[in-house]
C-alpha cells in the first residue's frame, strides 16, 4: 500500500495521528510526518485516517 499526503493541503490537524499512529506522527513543531509505504496490515487504520482528515489530503494507492 502507498500513502500520499498532499502537503499543500495538510494543515496539521493531527486527526490522522489518532486514527493511525503507526503511520502518521507529528514532529516537535507540530508538523506531519508519515510512512509512505506502510504494511498492508495497517490498511483499516490508514483508511480511517484518510476519512478523518478535515482537508481530505490523504490518498491511498494500491
Amino acid at each position, binding site marked *: 500500500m502507498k500513502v500520499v499526503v498532499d502537503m499543500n493541503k495538510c*494543515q496539521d490537524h*493531527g486527526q490522522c495521528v*489518532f486514527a493511525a499512529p503507526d503511520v502518521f506522527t*507529528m514532529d516537535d513543531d*507540530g*508538523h506531519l510526518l508519515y510512512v509512505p509505504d506502510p504494511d498492508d496490515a495497517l490498511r483499516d487504520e490508514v483508511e480511517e485516517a484518510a*476519512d*478523518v482528515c478535515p482537508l*481530505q489530503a490523504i*490518498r491511498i494507492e494500491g
Partner: protein
Amino acid sequence: MAAGIVVAGASLGGLRAAEHLRAAGWTGRITVVGEEPHMPYNRPPLSKEVLSGKAPFASLAFTPKPATADVEWRLGTRITAARLDERTVTLDDGSLLPYDGLVVATGMRPRRLRCPGPLAGRHTVRTLDDARRLRDELTRPGVRVVVVGAGFIGCEVAATAVALGVAEVTVVDPLPLPMAGPLGELLGRALLKRHEERGVRFVLGAGVAGFHGDERVTGVELSDGTVLAADVVVESVGSQANTEWLEGNGLDLSDGVLTDESLRVGGRPEVVAVGDVARFPNARYDGVPRRVEHWSIPTDTAKHAAKTLVGAGPGPFAPLPTFWSDQHDFRLQSFGAPALGLADVRVLDGDPAGDVLVGYHADDRLVGVVALGGQPAARLAARYRAHLLQQPALTA
C-alpha cells in the same frame, strides 16, 4: 431484499453511510438520494478557503472509494415524504422508492431571520452555491458587510471577509460575547479581543429588528433603533433540521430525529440516522440525546449506524466529539463536550492572551478541552484527548 437500502441526503453523512454499509458487509443495492445537484463535498472550507479564494470549488469533492462504485446516486432529487410502515419514500417527481433499510442523513439548513425588509443582499452559508454567491459580493470594492450571529460560522465569515480586504466588517449578536454559548465567557472574551484587534467590529447585546432598503438591503436596524449601513448581510443565526419529510410517522422530530443508543429511529430495526440531523444519546456522557453539528460526527455515526442496520449489534454509541474552527491566524481545537462543563471552566495551560488550553468540568470531572492559538496549543489539546477518553461516564 431487492429494494435495498435508501440513503436520504447526499452530503458527508450520506456518503459515509454508503461506504460503511459496504464495509459492514452489505452487498445489496444502495441508492443515495440528494437534493443538491453535486456529489458530496466538504463544507468546512466554504466559510474559509472557498470564500477567501484559496481553494477552488473543484477541490471540495470527496475521493470516491472503489467499494462504492456500484452505489446509485439520485442527485438533484428531493425526498418529500416517507411512509415507514410501508417502507417507501416519495420523491419530488411523485414516484415512490421502496426500501428494506433507510438511512436518514438530511442534515440541516440555515435558520433565517423573519423580520421586515428586502431579501436581496442577504446571504447564508451552507452550500457551495451559497459560498459562491457570497464570494462574488464580498469581492466588490468598498462593500460593507454586517454578519448577524457571532457563532462559529459568523465569526469565520467575518475573519475571511477581513482577509479578503473588506474594510467594514461588523458582527451583531444579542449575546454579550462571541461563541460564548458553546465555549463560555473566558474564551468568549479572548476571542472578542482577537477579532477586534484584526479589524472586526462587534455590536453585542443587540438583536436585529429589520432591514432597510427597497430592492436590496442597505442597512440593518437593531432592536435599539440604531441602523448599521450594509451592502451585504450574512445571516448565521443557527440551523434547523431537514426532517419535514419524516412527518406523519409518529417520530420525535422536535430537534432533528431522535435515535436510540444504536442510532435506530422510532424503535425500527430498518431505520437509522446519521450526521447533523441525528439526536442521539452518547454513552460517554449523561445519556441525554443531543444533536452534534461537528464535522467528525457524520463519519462516526455512519460507521456505527451501518453496523446497526446490517444487524452487527455494535453496542452503545459513545463517540468523543471533536471540532475545529479556523479564524484569522488562529485555530480553535476542541475535544469532548465543553458545553457540558460551562459551570466549571479552568485554564489548564498557557494564557488567554496567547496560546491557551481551557478545561471544562462537570462533577469535578474533565468533560472537554479547547485549545486556542497555534500548534503548541493544538499539541497540548491532543495530549488531553487520551485523558478525556479515559474519564468515566457522567451520571444522568
